């Protein structure tokens, strides 16, 4: 793919951006690791993707995600969050990320009118704190910040189907776009829709890949319908939160998003 975007019709760009206009074909390189129980695919487009600073940045991305997993994993008994919940670590001794993510979780519940929650409650059970739904998007945002520092690249960081697309220094206005295919929830391996993204997040929630796992916070019951919901927007935490909430109640979330996330789009398949 050597698709380049139309430069933005804004004022003439800085000299750096103009100089970065590719006269050579764009290379593409992928890095894949399994972290947080899912495949993390980092793809980079640049004129020369074999640069050592790209290698280093990719290494930092995966190191950051592994650190996030150490802090937040609910599947690892030795994670900080598990030890916190077990009383082995005091709140004041935690990584500052804990407070940051907790704040996001509270905000997400409020902003979605309770259609997203980080407090999982099966019927009859005491709600348990599970920030997983926020942590993934937040972690990808943290890692993307590292990639923005790398000059002359465009990147897409995909964590198990939810991704952030962005670019490094000097690429504003000339960064290539990425064609994101949205998988057909009714037929694996088939692409039901496509969207072009230069910078932003694409998040999809559904049951196709893992079976039913999204619960309706209002009832605690697992959402039984099929299909998927996709949100395209500026930020992966919120795209993910809205996509999950929309899977629970598409009509209500469509209305909420019109008011509270007007920059994002929602697609229900």
């Amino acid at each position, binding site marked *: 793919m050597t698709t380049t975007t*139309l430069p933005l019709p804004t004022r003439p760009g800085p000299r750096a951006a103009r100089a970065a206009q590719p006269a050579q074909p764009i290379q593409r390189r992928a890095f894949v690791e399994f972290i947080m129980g899912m495949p993390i695919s980092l793809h980079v487009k640049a004129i020369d993707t074999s640069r050592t600073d790209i290698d280093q940045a990719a290494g930092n991305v995966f190191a950051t995600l592994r650190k996030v997993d150490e802090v937040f994993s609910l599947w690892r008994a030795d994670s900080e969050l598990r030890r916190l919940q077990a009383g082995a670590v005091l709140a004041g001794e935690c990584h500052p990320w804990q407070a940051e993510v907790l704040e996001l979780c509270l905000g997400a519940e409020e902003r979605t009118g309770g259609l997203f929650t980080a407090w999982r409650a099966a019927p009859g059970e005491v709600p348990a704190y599970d920030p997983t739904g926020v942590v993934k998007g937040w972690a990808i945002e943290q890692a993307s910040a590292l990639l923005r520092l790398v000059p002359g690249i465009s990147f897409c960081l995909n964590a198990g189907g*939810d991704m952030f697309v962005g670019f490094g220094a000097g690429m504003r206005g000339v960064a290539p776009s990425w064609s994101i295919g949205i998988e057909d929830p009714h037929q694996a391996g088939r*692409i039901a829709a496509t969207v072009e993204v230069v910078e932003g997040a694409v998040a999809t929630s559904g049951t196709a890949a893992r079976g039913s796992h999204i619960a309706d916070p209002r009832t605690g019951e697992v959402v039984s319908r099929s299909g998927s919901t996709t949100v395209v927007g500026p930020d992966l935490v919120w795209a993910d939160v809205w996509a999950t909430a929309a899977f629970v109640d598409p009509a209500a979330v469509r209305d909420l998003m019109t008011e509270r996330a007007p920059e994002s789009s929602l697609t229900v398949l």
Partner: protein
Amino acid sequence: MRKITLWLMSTLSALVLLFSYPTSRNAAASSSVAAAAPTTTESGSGTTDSTDSATSQSPTGSATTDDTSSDATTESSTPSSSSTSSSSSDSSSSDAGTQTYAGDAVNTQWGLVQVQITVENGKITKSEVLQVPWSNHKDQEINSYAVPILNQETVDAQNSSIDMVSGATVTSVGYIQSLQSAIDQAHLS
């Protein structure tokens, strides 16, 4: 340099209107356009905005006297884009206090841009892009957080125009059979 001058001229005599696509974080998926100033209702030529010295020197629409505009404008459906009928903006007034103004099509380095605004009791209540510099759907989509386009195509990973795949969360096991995995394989070094 001439492009910068063009741009300055058009903005001096113009309103800079943001596209109606709201965005945040300076996202590249947003854009803004410069629109030529609307002419007033009583005049189909020149400008009546005497307070703006720049416009008195350059009739509205003069920004289209770019060499390249001749090719582009002959095919254009917008008469105002011609450099000879430079200020052909039409305005249609309806109710007292509500008027719409179509700016001249401005030839930017990226193509022709034309914006129409609605003014109600002295305030701009609406702006619409009548003409945009991109000619195909794909280019247009990247200027906002687009709604994905539905298709019926069965995508083959080996011969695909898809860069990445979004779907319900893939586990490590499911990944092996996934389309994303096939795309990754093609680009691993």
